[in-house]
């Protein structure tokens, strides 16, 4: 861990305890300027907690939040120049789109003309001009999301935080919005933290992924690093759909094999029986019964499958884990 005051956002040994419950356990994480880091994990893993600590909405029980080397811990949420897009968007329902964007500036005493100029510019950027007089209730889910985004960007924040910003949108819209969101948010000067429980979204949005579970950081790295070189069994099984196969092949060691790394062959080590076949167009997923339990195998859609295939794999794709702790073991 570097102690030098670097550019970007740095979390040091960040903790959050409520009563007896440890919501976040000594998180160390660095987000470079312009970098987008996705906080990924199941619900209750501490990812939203982390975001609220960075924003200053909840007090940390320990640790520091540094921005460009400057400690933010003593600053209130209004003084951190943090913008946040909430899962519910949190638009003020009694104000128009313009009113939603302008309230923060107005309260800070910005002159009306300058305020209007900034609002107009942001509305243009997000192509929301025609909706400026509408109330949130009169907007579609996607439009609300863009207004929330506009409100966040308008303030020229030093940190951008997004808390499951797309989870209220349907899958198709989510996929459509992803590139736009990336265009608007990432690659500027600010560090971006993006909370999601959807690995597709994390891979699509982020430069790096920080995977959390039960308040602890499991691994942080590029999607490729996490996928090919998981630090433990949790990382291996959380990332990748269909999920990794875990085989108790040897006592004291558990073998993880990705579904795409298992091959049907005549001389494979494991005998199996075909249970079901899911045809996905670009691939097919085979569910096979074996002495190690049900296995998932991804193959090309045209691959012929014998009723009693045998499975083989390459040594380089083996991932070994400790069956108790789940820790990664050397091959």
């Amino acid at each position, binding site marked *: 861990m570097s102690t030098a005051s670097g550019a970007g956002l740095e979390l040091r040994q960040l903790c959050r305890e409520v009563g007896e419950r440890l919501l976040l356990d000594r998180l160390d994480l660095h987000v470079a300027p312009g970098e987008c880091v996705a906080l990924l994990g199941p619900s209750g893993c501490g990812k939203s907690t982390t975001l609220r600590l960075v924003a200053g909405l909840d007090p940390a029980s320990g640790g520091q939040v540094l921005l460009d080397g400057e400690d933010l811990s003593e600053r209130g*949420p209004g003084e951190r120049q943090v913008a*946040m897009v909430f899962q519910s*968007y*949190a638009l003020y*329902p009694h104000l128009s789109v313009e009113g939603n964007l302008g*309230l923060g500036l107005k309260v800070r005493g910005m002159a009306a003309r300058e305020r209007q100029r900034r609002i107009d510019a942001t509305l243009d950027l997000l192509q929301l001009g025609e909706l400026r007089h509408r109330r949130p209730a009169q*907007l579609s889910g996607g439009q609300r999301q863009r207004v929330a985004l506009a409100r966040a960007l308008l*303030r020229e924040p030093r940190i951008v935080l997004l808390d499951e910003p797309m989870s209220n949108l349907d899958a198709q819209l989510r996929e459509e919005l992803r590139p736009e969101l990336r265009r608007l948010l990432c690659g500027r000067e600010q560090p971006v933290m993006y909370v999601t429980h959807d690995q597709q979204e994390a891979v699509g949005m982020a430069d790096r992924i920080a995977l959390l579970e039960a308040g602890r950081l499991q691994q942080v790295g590029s999607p490729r690093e996490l996928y090919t070189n998981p630090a433990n069994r949790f990382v291996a099984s959380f990332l990748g759909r269909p999920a990794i196969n875990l085989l108790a092949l040897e006592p004291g060691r558990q073998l993880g094999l990705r579904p795409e790394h298992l091959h049907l062959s005549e001389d494979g080590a494991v005998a199996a029986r075909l249970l079901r076949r899911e045809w996905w167009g670009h691939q097919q997923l085979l569910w096979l019964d074996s002495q190690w339990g049900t296995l998932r195998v991804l193959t090309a859609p045209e691959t012929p499958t014998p009723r009693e295939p045998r499975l083989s794999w390459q040594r380089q794709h083996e991932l070994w884990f400790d069956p108790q702790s789940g820790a990664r073991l050397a091959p």
Partner: protein
Amino acid sequence: MRLLVLLWSLGPLLWQLRTSLLRPEALVAPLLEGNPWTLANYQLVLSGDPPFWRYLGNSTLVGLATTLLTLLLAVPCAYGLQKLRGPLRWGVGLALVGAAMFPTVLLFLALLEIARSFGLANNLLTLSLPYTALSLPLAVLLLRAAFADLPGELEDAARLEGLDLGQRLQHVLLPLLAPALASTAILVFLASWNEYAIALTWISRNDLLTLPIAIARIGGGSVFTIPYGAFAAATVLGSLPLLLLVLLAQRSIVSGLTRGAVKG
């Protein structure tokens, strides 16, 4: 069916109106001859000294002062309680329910003593003090529930934009609470408008009486007659401002203002 329910609820009120417009003789037996309708009851009530409008004004003043004071105290209290965590929250909530259910009758003598020793009697504004105290628990409970219904992320968003507590209340929370504030205000105003016992003991000057006391004092031609018609007329007159108030407030009571704040 709807008409039936409507008649059922409005029946007593309409009967009151009818009573207020009938000649006294027509009340007890169907009149054999002549027109049973009259405005004499209203003339009687309005021609009293001091004029009836005076009592209306007194009650309005007390009601407004009570409502204003109650809301001024209840809003911060409800907000604070809503943010409070831990056993204290539970304890205070219980105490409030207890206070709201406390029988007011037990307080009269003590209140009278207080009025006497602090010189609070015969003053319309000080009369709103005990009224506020009595209305406060219910108002706090109602407003706390309303605060609890607001999505927490709304206030978080406002905090991130640098709005301090006062600004959050002014620009975000209270506008969204308008329906709850209006209905709470009406309840408080009504309680003050109808209160009898404290007003009876605190106010003795004729020109400072509130409506309920004034109505009770309307006398008949002799001690043996009960001026039903005049009572009814006074009650009708006394209800008019309330009717107006509710009609006016109806617009802000319309719910659904918070729709669209979170996923709709």
